């Protein structure tokens, strides 16, 4: 599988699909560029277009809760598997679209559109 090959090469891209999140910046690096951990620390975060959960899982140890939403059911299955493996209890993933968000008004302190809009 492509991701294994990348891991063996030390995150060197070798025939990795261009949409693969592994070739995106590290979540904590990206967060630092945006202004630092304080942006999400102890906050209720929604990661819209979360894909395979790369970013949501990366910031979950800092946040109060993280919800990830993506229309791609396969990507959400991968995200849920990764969440189970990581043992993080404050992350939830769901299938859905940004045009109709399945959350109540004012449910979040931070919404991320990371490589999504």
């Amino acid at each position, binding site marked *: 599988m492509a991701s294994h090959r990348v891991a063996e090469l030390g995150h060197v891209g070798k025939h990795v699909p261009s949409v693969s999140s592994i070739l995106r910046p590290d979540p904590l690096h990206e967060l630092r560029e945006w202004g630092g951990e304080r942006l999400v620390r102890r906050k209720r975060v929604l990661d819209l277009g979360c894909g395979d959960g790369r970013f949501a899982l990366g910031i979950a140890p800092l946040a109060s809760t993280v919800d990830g939403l993506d229309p791609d059911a396969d990507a959400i299955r991968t995200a849920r598997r990764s969440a189970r493996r990581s043992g993080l209890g404050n992350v939830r993933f769901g299938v859905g679209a940004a045009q109709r968000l399945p959350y109540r008004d*004012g449910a*979040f302190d*931070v919404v991320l559109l990371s490589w999504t809009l």
Partner: protein
Amino acid sequence: MVHALHEVHRVLAPGGVLIDARPDSRVAASIARRRPRGFQVFGSVRTNRVELANDLASDRAITRVVGEGLFRRKRRGRFWHRVPFASLPDLRQYLREHLRFVHGATWVVDEVTRRRYANDQFVIRRAVRFEILEARRDLRAGN
């Protein structure tokens, strides 16, 4: 996109923030060979027209919801991200499959040089832009 941003505003608590981050298509990405110290630029690669149009549409959507008073622009910036490749053929393969970039690069070194160093490690250095917006109370709805 505007409808999605209205939904984002609805689910954000007043004073909450929206972080919009995406590749900066206004700036060409560079292709460089990794050297023991630093990088040697071999060329550049542009974003394809469809994605440029999408990015413009996203910009317009943000501008519109700011104009509607739903969000206030707080801060914006740009940083650079390197995508590494084991060789030049691998980088070219990546470009052929890529959804945002045009599939061909513009080279600043000749073909002989490209062949000579084809098995070296390469990177695509691309810009990522971000903007942080604060959710304001929707005065139109009385919320």
